[in-house]
Each structure stands twice: as C-alpha cells, then as structure tokens.
C-alpha cells in the first residue's frame, strides 16, 4: 500500500483534552484589553452617544426630520449618488487594477502614484481643483456647479482609489497558471472570468466598494464648493447635518447621522453577502 494513501484524516487524529474556554495568554489578554478600550473610546462610545442623542428626542424627532422634505431629498441624493459612484468604481476600479497588475506600459509607475492622489489630497483642496475645472470658469467649458452632477463628480474623484487598491494585491496573488488551467480544460475567456477570476476577486471588490460607498455618503469637503448646496438640487446629507447644528438642532442632526449610519451598515452587510454568493457560486 502506498503510504501517501494513509494520511491521517481529521477524525483519526487524537483529540486534545478539553481546556477552559479562553485560550488567551497573559500578553494576548493585555493586547485584547488595550485594543477593546481604544476601539471603545474612539468608536463605540461616540456611536452610542450619537444614537442616544437621536433616541433622546424620541421617534418624534426621527419622523419629523425624515418628514422634512429638504432633509429627505438630501439623504436621497447622497445615497443615490454614492450608490451610482460605487457601481462605477466597481467596474472602473477593477479594470484599472487589472491594467496596473497585468499589463506593462510606459508611465505605469507614474500612474501607480497618481492613483493615490485622491487619498492624499486634503478634501477641500480637491474641492478647489474640481471647482476650477468644472465650475463657472471651467477651462474645459464644462460647468456642473450647483447641480447634482457636481456631487457625482466629486464623489467619483475622491473614491477612485478604493476599489483599485483593494483589488490590486489580490490580483497580484492570482497566478496566471490558474487561468491557463481553466483554458486547457476548455473554458472560454468569458467563462474563466466569470467562474475563476471574479469569484477570487469578489471579496476584495466588495471591500473596496464598501469603503467607496461609506466615503461617498459621508463626503463633505470636496463637494461643498462645487455643489453650491442648493436645497432639493445639490445639498447632501453631511451638509444638512452641518446646518442643523448651526441652527442649534442637535437632535435632528443626530437623527440624520443615525440614518446615515444605518445605511452604511446595511451597505456593508449587503456587499458582504453578495461577495460570499459570487465566491460560492464560482
């Protein structure tokens, strides 16, 4: 009998005696403690506070805030544009990542660096750049100032790197041999994409899309100059929160914040589910 064939399987291996529930050593426990404390101070407590503040006003404030046509329109615009931008990023970001990883061309190094500029640029600077490019004095003759297109454009600009940077490392790990194997088994280029490449990239595309969407619904600095913040036209949720605070209505501001938070959470969960599905059904 060939010894390869008698490798131990999980069931024949001897079980370790049952230990107490926690396997943390002392240094690991301290690490976990510090981590949780840090996370609490920075994230959990502020989140709890904002929810508390919003809830403090009761359902009335929520309904009233949502019932305000201007606020509802601002939230609608924000979510719509963020979704649209995320969709574009999923396609374009994956494409750019593919080109950067798989192709060799003149200026590749430069492009690698330029991709990160939206990350590195202070958002208000980005806003200034966009205003001078697409504002009333546009050298290109494109004037989208004070329209919803300006929101779309600004979001597109600042969220460009998310999907690219999420997909790139995974694509680098993907061996070309795997595609060759699929080809030798008879798979067309399209089938290879759909059944081999896409399922491998799905988790990273989803995480890039989540970041891009989250950034999209929260963006302020880059669009505030170009959009003009016209109610019912180009005013976004973050601007709405700002003006609620300015008008001394923190409860309504918190209500909008909590709604945005809920939308972001829903987006994270949905994208995760989609990516799991794509991966499983490869």
């Amino acid at each position, binding site marked *: 009998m060939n010894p390869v064939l008698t490798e131990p399987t999980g069931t024949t291996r001897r079980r370790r005696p049952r230990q107490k529930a926690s396997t943390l050593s002392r240094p690991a426990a301290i690490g976990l403690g510090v981590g949780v404390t840090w996370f609490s101070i920075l994230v959990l407590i502020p989140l709890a506070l904002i929810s508390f503040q919003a809830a403090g006003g009761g359902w009335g404030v929520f309904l009233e805030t949502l019932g305000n046509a201007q606020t509802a329109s601002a939230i609608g615009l924000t979510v719509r544009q963020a979704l649209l931008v995320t969709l574009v990023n999923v396609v374009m970001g994956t494409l750019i990542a593919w080109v950067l990883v798989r192709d060799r061309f003149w200026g590749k190094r430069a492009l690698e660096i330029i991709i990160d500029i939206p990350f590195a640029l202070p958002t208000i600077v980005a806003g200034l750049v966009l205003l001078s490019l697409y504002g009333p004095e546009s050298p290109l003759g494109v004037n989208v100032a004070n329209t919803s297109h300006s929101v779309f454009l600004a979001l597109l600009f600042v969220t460009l790197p998310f999907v690219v940077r999420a997909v790139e490392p995974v694509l680098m790990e993907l061996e070309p041999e795997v595609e060759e194997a699929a080809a*030798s088994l008879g798979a067309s280029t399209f*089938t290879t994409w759909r059944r081999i490449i896409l399922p491998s990239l799905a988790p990273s595309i989803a995480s890039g899309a989540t970041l891009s969407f989250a950034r999209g619904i929260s963006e302020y600095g880059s669009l505030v100059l170009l959009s003009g913040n016209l109610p019912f036209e180009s005013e976004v949720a973050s601007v709405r929160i700002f003006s609620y605070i300015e008008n001394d209505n923190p409860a309504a501001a918190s209500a909008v914040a909590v709604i945005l938070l809920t939308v972001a959470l829903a987006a994270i969960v949905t994208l995760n589910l989609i990516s799991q599905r794509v991966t499983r059904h490869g």
Partner: protein
Amino acid sequence: MGIEIVGVNKSFGDFVALSDIDLSIPGGGLTALLGPSGGGKSTLLRIIAGLETADSGTIEIEGRDTTNVPAQRRNVGFVFQHYAAFKHMTVAKNVAFGLEIRKRPKAEIARRVAELLELVHLEQFAHRLPAQLSGGQRQRMALARALAIEPSVLLLDEPFGALDAKVRKELRDWLRRLHDGVHVTTVFVTHDQEEALEVADTIVVINDGRIEQVGTPDDLYDKPASDFVLGFLGPVTTLGDRLIRPHDIEISRVEQAAVVDGPITRWTRVGFEIRLEVTPIDTRYAPVQVSVTRTEAHALGLHPGDHVWLRPAVGAPSVVST
C-alpha cells in the same frame, strides 16, 4: 499516432528557447522531457498544450493538426508544477470543472467525479477546499481534474517539483502505476534524471533548445550520444581524455595495461560506497574520481595512498571529453 512535432522554433526576444525541434512522441507511452532548467523543455510542453505558440513549425496530436487550434479546443490535460488549483472551489468542483464546461448531464458529472476521486485516492476529501490539502494531495487533485476531460494527451510540467523528496518519490511510483492503468499518451517535464530513468518509457534529453538524444532509459544510460547526456544522467569523471562514470573504472594495485596510474589521494566513505580520487603521475591528466563498493575495496586490499592502475571496465560507456 501520439504527438508529431515538426520544425518547431520559439524565441523570446533574443533568447532562443527552441530551435528546429523534430520529435515523434509515441502514443500510449510515458515520455519524459529531461534537461536542465532554461533548456526549453517546458516551452515545448506548453507549445504542445497551446499555452504558447511556436514561431514556426507544426504540432499534430493523434493525427490531427493542432498548430492553430487554441488551447481550449485541443483536448489536452495539463498539470502544473504549482497545482494551479481553483482555490474557491471544493476538490469535487475542481475535478468537475472541465465536464461542466462541456455541459455534460449532472448525473454523469457526479459519477465521473466520484470515479476520478477514487482513482487518485481523494474520495474522502471531495468537499474540502484545496487549501486544506497537502501538496501531494493537491497535485493528485490537479491530475484528476486534467483526466476528467478524457484528454487525448496528458502533459505534466515538473509535476513533482514543488514536493518534498519523500512525497515526490511516492507520487512518481504512483504515476507510473496510474499510467499502466489509464494508457493515455503522457508527457512530463523534469530536470531530475532519476525521475526520468525510473518512470519513463522514452526519454527526450533537451538542452539549449535542442534535442540531444531520444531513447529508452537503457539506451540513454548505456549509449549516451554526447558528453552532455552522459554527464546529465549521473556523475562522470575524466579518465585520460574520455568521460566515464566513476563506477565504470577498473582499478588494480598491480601493474597492468592502464590509461593512467597514480596514488590514491582522497578516500571518502559514503555508506556502502567508497569514493576515491586518484592523481595520475602523468600531469597532463586531471585527477580521476573512482567509485568502488566497500566489498570490492576489501577484496582488492585498497588503502589510501596506494599506487593504482586505472582503465575503463569492459563495455563501459564513455565519450571523448571536449
């Protein structure tokens, strides 16, 4: 039938990977392409599979001219050195892939996958992911995946190269037995002469983009066509102006007709074998490595420093040293 390769050339920029390859690979056999890294053997295999296109020349598989047929439609099973597993699919799904592409009925796919997993002894791992398998198991999965499409030829590119020595040896024996059962025309690339000598029916020695020799393992070992083939199939030493294997040298303590003579200047014992170095009196000649068994050394009464006479053993293959 088998594979007919005529006048194949391939260059990558200035580098000539293959030059004017003519080769006829017998159908149903197990053929090894043997040679050093960068010699062109993998390129030749990839050209047969259609993963690479030749600059010129033709490839015929089982009587069908496939020179311009894309890899997808060559019906070739290909096994890669690093498994090329579909990481997000279970073992069973990996094996089923080629059949699903061919839109076979579900029941037939399930039956075929079960058969193949049994053939490669992975039945109980059907629902695992490739990451949960050992290297040897992954390579057997890759083999089952390639066999699933009932390929006209099976091509393996350094299939055991990424495995450790013990598993490599086991899989090598196993491949030989598998082939005896399946009889598909099989070509594998290796740089390990022992692997080729042990497993293959026919060995094709490739070096520097050219075929050095084609023959059975015995042919190659007993009648090497060049110093390269002799040197690649095991250790060699220079005796006078000829290359010869260290164990093919007759050694004597009494004066006799000899090519060279001189004292034993080095004595290394490795298990049952004793490796000697003899420095010829005639300084035109390089030191000679001689290998004798311990029993022989005893019988001859050899000791370090003894003056000995060396000549080729009767019928020993040797070639003129260049």
